């Protein structure tokens, strides 16, 4: 009994894999376990909505608060459509100004970081406007947010794009009046393989030590790379317990998302209906 249910969980979780270096391995495992399973679809949500998972740090856990927060998050999602997005996607956020209640602000930018869980989940948008780099940190469930649109849904090679702060401005400049690109339904999220060129030093962080994938050659003297190699953390990838403490076990993810799955699905369907309404333009009678 137990093993079969576990295999089911694995299979779904692997379905949730969309992209990264593990995809090939994941496919291998799915093929291996392909014999006996039906796929419940809860675990795909853990990638789309990671903020529904609780904080992995045990000190910050509080089961009751987590349940209430999840209810609040769903309530907020019923009022404002919060779409699926990832670090590297280009978003446009319309939010009201608390100092000027009648005015609506709109900010377009690339999501360079996504952090936090529960109601405190947030993301940072970056754009360069009038040759001035602007970054705004939005709380996803902030009630002043009126509307979030994904203009381009894609991922980048890294999990955080904070290095765009030290990159040439063209890499973080996005047109404010950008048209939204719509991905065909059911397609995989594309990964943008763009390699960014950084400005010469000084930088905000020592990027040569961060093991970045989406960056062109840093053009530093040899000693910098030597020092980076000295300080490189070669062992923590083998520290099984560190990994365990950074994540939420599959069984728990499964439980959380099976509770809210139907709600999330309903929200998705409602959103699709609305989209169709918007895209339908009434034909005009010609003379």
């Amino acid at each position: 009994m137990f093993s079969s249910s576990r295999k089911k969980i694995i299979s779904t979780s692997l379905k949730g894999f969309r992209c990264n270096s593990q995809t090939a391995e994941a496919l291998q495992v799915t093929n291996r376990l392909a014999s006996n399973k039906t796929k419940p679809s809860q675990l795909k949500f853990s990638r789309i909505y990671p903020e529904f998972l609780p904080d992995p740090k045990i000190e910050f856990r509080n089961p009751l608060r987590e349940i209430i927060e999840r209810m609040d998050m769903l309530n907020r999602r019923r009022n404002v459509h919060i779409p699926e997005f990832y670090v590297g996607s280009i978003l446009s956020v319309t939010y009201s100004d608390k100092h000027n209640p009648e005015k609506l602000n709109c900010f377009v930018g690339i999501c360079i970081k996504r952090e936090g869980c529960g109601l405190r989940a947030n993301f940072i948008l970056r754009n360069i406007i009038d040759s001035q780099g602007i970054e705004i940190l939005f709380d996803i469930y902030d009630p002043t947010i009126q509307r979030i649109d994904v203009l381009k849904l894609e991922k980048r090679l890294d999990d955080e794009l904070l290095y765009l702060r030290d990159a040439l401005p063209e890499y973080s400049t996005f047109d404010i009046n950008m048209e939204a690109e719509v991905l065909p339904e059911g397609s995989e999220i594309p990964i943008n393989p763009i390699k960014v060129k950084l400005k010469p030093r000084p930088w905000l962080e020592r990027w040569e030590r961060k093991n970045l994938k989406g960056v062109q050659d840093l053009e530093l003297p040899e000693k910098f790379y030597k020092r980076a190699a000295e300080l490189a953390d070669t062992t923590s990838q083998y520290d099984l317990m560190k990994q365990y403490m950074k994540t939420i076990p599959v069984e728990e993810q499964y439980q959380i998302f099976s509770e809210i799955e139907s709600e999330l699905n309903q929200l998705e369907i409602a959103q699709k209906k609305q989209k169709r309404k918007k895209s339908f333009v009434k034909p005009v009678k010609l003379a």
Partner: protein
Amino acid sequence: MNQADVSKLVSQLRIKVNPRLRRFSNPNGPAGRLDKLRKTVTGLIKHERIELNYPRADEARMYAERLISDAIRYGDCHRTTMEMADFWIIEKQLIHKLFKVLVPRFQDCNTSYTRLYKVPSPYPIIYKREDCYRKAVLELRGNPYPSLLPDKQYNKNIIHNILLEEAKKEYRMQKYAEVVANTEEKGKCQTDSPDEKLETSSDISSKPESNKDEHTT
């Protein structure tokens, strides 16, 4: 403020996970710490039961559980899991044991894969820190050795134990009846002597005491 890392999927451990990892201060830093734990985990997989200091046993237990749970979840065709097994098991022939012996053994297991016992520390006991110098025994479940726990097979609710209890009671009642009969006979023979009365009274007083004992046992 963290977000759960969902790139790697792990099974839930069936043991209590400490909120913080022990540092095991070491001249080689974190690598040295892992090296220590690696030896213990290898030893555990090799011998299936080891005795060692409590802190290290407690720490190594979590790593051993993770290794086995990953082996069960992903199997031996998964590259990352194989790399982990290669790192954590120093004697390479034991990698086969992990995937071919331990995985089938624990596949349908609903409890933890290991057990940790606290055992008495060797004399003289030096208390340096709270659990320093405490000894522990760490073992894999389903090992071939005899159990370390006392045998708790005796159960008063088992039918033969109930029958035996009843037989004992009956025997005792019989004995009391005999004693009473004896004293009565003696009383009839020597009614006038005052010593006998004293004896009978002592007999009577002894009865309830013995009854009490029976109940407590």
